């Protein structure tokens, strides 16, 4: 089974390491992952207004491409995942969006949300399995205390994202355990980092990011991990770096022993 991989813009530029480590790891795990050809930007934020159609089209193109492959669209960036998954839900349940998007795109066959959008972490959980992952770890991160930072985009709205329990998620903690480290649960792990507001009102993002980092640190975390380049930017550049912030793929690569090749 092949996963059609959608990296998204930022993973090709400012968040190259998130992408590169992820690709090294899928190789180490023996997964068949192929990048989508000629992909376009997903739009970065899901347009919530019910009359937004054009802004969803590039996501539909991506989803439709994956349908033509094995129907499994693999995402890594939390924002891309959120946009693609929610647009896909619209194509399933919103007849108006489905009709107009299909009319516009003039596809050979109507697209009605057939593709399954799978986040990299979901792939690890559902297709690799924590026990298998554990078995492949060569450098267990023993004694490292890691706080999972979920943010908003992976979890909410949970009725659509269906990623994990929106208030008490465990997937990243399970991931941390599988690579041999110790998860630190802290109450701000699903709070917002300030998102796009940091462009215009950096003070807000600074407050939000520091609340998250302080909470992680106070609960004993040595580092927090994220799947989102924007969260990474806010936590790292807006926050006062009381704890280190890393992409989860980096520590995965470390655990699998493929970080430095």
């Amino acid at each position, binding site marked *: 089974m092949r996963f059609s991989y959608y990296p998204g813009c930022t993973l090709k530029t400012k968040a190259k390491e998130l992408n590169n480590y992820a690709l090294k790891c899928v190789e180490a795990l023996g997964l068949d992952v192929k990048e989508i050809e000629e992909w376009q930007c997903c739009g970065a934020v899901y347009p919530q207004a019910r009359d937004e159609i054009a802004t969803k089209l590039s996501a539909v193109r991506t989803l439709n491409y994956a349908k033509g492959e094995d129907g499994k669209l693999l995402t890594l960036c939390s924002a891309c995942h959120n946009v693609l998954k929610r647009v896909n839900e619209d194509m399933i349940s919103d007849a108006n969006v489905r009709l107009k998007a299909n009319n516009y795109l003039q596809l050979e066959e109507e697209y009605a949300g057939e593709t399954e959008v799978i986040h990299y972490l979901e792939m690890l959980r559902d297709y690799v399995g924590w026990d298998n992952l554990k078995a492949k770890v060569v450098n267990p991160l023993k004694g490292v205390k890691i706080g999972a930072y979920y943010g908003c985009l992976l979890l909410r709205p949970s009725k659509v994202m269906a990623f994990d329990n929106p208030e008490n998620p465990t997937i990243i903690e399970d991931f941390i355990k599988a690579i041999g480290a110790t998860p630190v649960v802290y109450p701000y792990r699903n709070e917002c980092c300030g998102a796009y507001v940091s462009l215009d009102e950096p003070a807000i993002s600074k407050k939000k990011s520091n609340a998250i980092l302080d909470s992680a640190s*106070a*609960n004993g975390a040595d580092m927090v991990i994220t799947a989102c380049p924007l969260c990474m930017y806010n936590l790292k550049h807006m926050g006062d770096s009381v704890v280190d912030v890393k992409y989860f793929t980096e520590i995965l690569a470390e655990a699998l022993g493929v970080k430095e090749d």
Partner: protein
Amino acid sequence: MQRIGVFVCWCGSNIAATVDVERVAEAVKSEPGVVFSTQYQYMCSENGQQLIRQAIKEHNLTGVVVCSCSPRMHEATFRKTAESAGINPYMVEIANIREQVSWIHKDIEEGTEKAIILARTAIAKVNLNAPLTAGETKVTKRALVIGGGIAGIQSALDIAEAGYEVDIVETKPTIGGRMAQLDKTFPTLDCAACILTPKMVDVAQNEKITLYTYSEIEDVKGFVGNFSVKIRKKARYINEDACTGCGVCMNACPSKKGLNEFNQGLNNRPAIYIPFAQAIPNIAVIDPQQCLKIKNGKCGLCAMKCPSNAIDYTQTDEIVEREYGAIVVATGYKTIDLDKFGEYAYNESKDVVTSLELERLMNAAGPTKGTLLRPSDGEHPHDITFIQCVGSRDTSGCGKPYCSKICCMYTAKHAMLIREKYPDVKVHIFYIDVRTPGKNYDEFYRRAAEQYGVDYIKGMVGKVYPQPNGKLLVQGSDLINNEQVLIESDMVVLATAIEPEPSVRRIATLLTTSIDTNNFLTEAHAKLRPVESPTAGIFLSGVCQGPKDIPETVSQASACAAKVIGLLAKNTLKGNACVAGPDESMCNGCSVCANVCPYGAITYVDKEFRLGGGKTETRRVSQVNQAICQGCGACTVACPSGAMDLKGFANKQIMAEVEAICKR
């Protein structure tokens, strides 16, 4: 040929404003069989009924059609009228020209036309009606009460008081239910145990009442007046007659890590235990999942220590079969699961508790002997925040859409009790609305705010953040001051929504009675028959029917008992005359009817039939027990050969009605 009289009712202006009643009476005069037709302002009034009686006698009527309101309203009235004038009550048919015509149509032409069609339809049916007689069945003068909480206890005591035998079946090892777990009760703040335990003792001592605790309903058969119920008495591993409730076994037991159900799992109990000091019956029970002797044969300490030799590790479940005339359902409630409310950190922090847990934490017989201590570290709390409506009035799918009704009052009670006993503790209550209808209820709540200085905050908590210092940071909205408030609390108490005890679904299926989308049992009529279920002989007591507090539960339990007593006072019951029966010559013995019958009224017999020429054949044919048949008609629809028919609703009668509607 029938001689039919048609009586068109105006129902004041209810019908007459939208239906030209005179035209209806005139139009049906030429219908086959009709020899008399008239209209009158209120047919159900004494004068109206007299008019019908007189017409029956004057015109020698054999059948009656009343064009009026729904048959649910007055069919019985008019049947009685006809019977008193000497004709069989089943020769009366109602054409519903109110609910089905005047109330839903505006146009008088349309309304009148439809009323005439419905009148013709009823006439067509009466032409094929035959007199029917209902059979009679005896009433077993004993009641079953399912559930031994305050609802079941009150119903049982009242029924026994009237002189009838009552059995209580309770799944827990003791009766008492939720009320036994409560500390004080609103609005008078008397201690729950002080007012409940005397009633529990009354139950135990009442010679009319038999208790089946630690028991479950296994099967129910029969019908109103004649239920046959199998009760599973689960193995207690104790000889009930020998056990004196001395409690020596509890001290002897080495396996002490069972969750204490009575204390909502807040502390532990041994594998052999008596749920609480005032338990009725005061007899121990062994948890077989926890007992070392039962699990792997290695122990037996309790048996060695028991001074009355009451322990029997080999005991097995026992099935008891009993007959009852009436059944009361009083299965009660539980608090909802809080897994979908992660924002309140209930699973993360021991200091976030439900209100029911708080009852135990404040009770002298609870895990902290009545001293309110923070569960995580046993320290005295200084600040407590209550959150109301946790999972109530929630249409998001996480909680329940209804108001749980009891939470506003018990939260005010908790707040007051805490402030009274520990004046140094700050108490905040987040509320959406404070709902306190009831005698002395609003006064009670206001006392909490005005005299006890409880901080009522209109708004809802968004999230509870457990802090590394062990405190709980409560973030919520204060809508009156338009602020987001942050309160550092030692404990958070969740006024958790209540839901019917889940076992009620199984019970409802066994009793063939209905439950609503929230698993509450449905009453026969929301206003006029609130304690009866739609299934004859099944009555509803307490929260299984809808959220209610103790005073309301007790009222309903007594009302329920009155209904049961009314039933048990009868020696016989008139059955249903509209029963099913097969045309044996057409029946091929396929069993389809027996499979669809919800009442178990159909059996099969091998019967000998004459074939002519002295030959006979034996065939398997269906047989309907007319005492059990409720006339639902499921079998007549299911029968593939058309052999099954329903008296009073025969296939040819229904077809005649359809034809009358279609005919122009």
